[in-house]
């Protein structure tokens, strides 16, 4: 019977899909472990760097009543131009991971546009680029490959370029959006203000009383270097964070897909058995009724 054959073919194809999704899950879990290792290592460095920046900023704030007088700290009340850098994955099949970032980016764009602020977009990751290209939104930068294999040098180059346009006055604010990793089953959209450095976020506790000596004497030299390194590292760390989140999201999505495929195979098997039974019954009735008519 044609129907039987059809169901059998379907079972085979679903089983194949299940194999693929399961393999993808395994690949992602292996990659995830590596990424997490990387994240763990760089977290220490990022933490120390932030700590140091905190202390310097605190010291400068104490010595200057009007706040910190440095280009990276100047806070524009009403920004006219904003740069948004957002990170998505290069690949799909990871649930709503990419779309969450895109959605948040879109939301921010419309928020800023409502305030008459010019927004420039810089995209990292193929999925985000594809989306905004499809919707005819202009992108300042398009970086492919970096979100799948974060590399410090490349990340630093990208963000330095953005920072330069900030120093030149081409933009008043730089925002970084990425989907960060919380744990195996949760990801969280993180929106960070890269520049100007958000002093409200720095923990400026006035508890430390010890005089801080700075070398070179000129505060700005040190602060400039530190801020530059800080944003470079924030960018790099966000890439790693995003990659870890991507892999965990994909693991989750592929796990769900594998389970669904399993369920489907089960359902189809029941259907197949029913159809087979039906065919047998029909055949039996045919034979019996044939015998009856012979009598």
């Amino acid at each position: 019977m044609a129907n039987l054959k059809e169901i059998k073919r379907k079972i085979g194809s679903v089983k194949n899909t299940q194999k693929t999704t399961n393999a993808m899950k395994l690949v992602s879990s292996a990659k995830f472990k590596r990424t997490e290792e990387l994240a763990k290592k760089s977290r220490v460095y990022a933490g120390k760097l932030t700590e140091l920046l905190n202390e310097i900023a605190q010291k400068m704030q104490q010595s200057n009543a009007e706040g910190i007088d440095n280009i990276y700290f100047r806070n524009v009340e009403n920004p006219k131009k904003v740069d948004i850098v957002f990170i998505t994955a290069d690949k799909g099949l990871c649930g709503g991971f990419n779309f969450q970032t895109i959605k948040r980016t879109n939301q921010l764009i419309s928020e800023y546009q409502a305030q008459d602020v010019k927004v420039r977009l810089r995209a990292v990751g193929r999925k985000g680029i594809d989306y905004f290209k499809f919707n005819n939104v202009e992108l300042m930068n398009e970086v492919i490959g970096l979100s799948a294999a974060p590399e410090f040098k490349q990340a630093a180059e990208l963000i330095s370029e953005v920072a330069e346009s900030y120093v030149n006055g081409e933009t008043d604010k730089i925002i970084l959006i990425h989907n960060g990793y919380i744990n195996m089953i949760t990801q969280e959209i993180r929106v960070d203000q890269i520049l100007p450095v958000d002093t409200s976020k720095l923990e400026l506790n006035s508890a430390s009383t010890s005089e801080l000596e700075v070398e070179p004497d000129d505060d700005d030299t040190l602060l400039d270097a530190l801020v530059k390194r800080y944003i470079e590292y924030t960018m790099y760390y966000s890439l790693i964070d995003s990659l870890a989140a991507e892999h965990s999201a994909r693991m989750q999505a592929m796990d769900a897909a594998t389970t669904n495929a399993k369920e489907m195979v089960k359902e189809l098997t029941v259907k197949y058995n029913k159809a087979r039974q039906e065919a047998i019954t029909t055949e039996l009735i045919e034979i019996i009724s044939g015998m009856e008519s012979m009598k």
Partner: protein
Amino acid sequence: MELMKLEIVTPDGVIFDAEVKQVTLPGSEGEFGVLAKHATLVSLLDTGVIVIEKSDSSELAVAINSGYVKVDEEKTTCIVDGAVALSGDDSDLAKALEEAKTLLKSTESSNTAIAAAVSKVEHIGKSL
């Protein structure tokens, strides 16, 4: 001699974390040594070599490209971009020396700073 805590952190993680007697750092304004109870200080670090005198008085050198150091009364924290450790008991010292030299040469510092650091590395290599 009083000991102090020294920590060296690179983007690849913590490479050194122990109690030491003294550390000599390549500051951007010149080399300086730090002992326990040093006044609080933050400095840029230039391309060069960090020389550590460990608690057992043995010396350890770490070649770095650039970074920062924060010194306070109880602890010294170096945040560096790239580092290669050169220690005497390392069997592949030659390899470490090569690595250190490549690291030093890859920076954007002035040629004299690089040359000074490279010669220092070579000197350490001979003395170990």
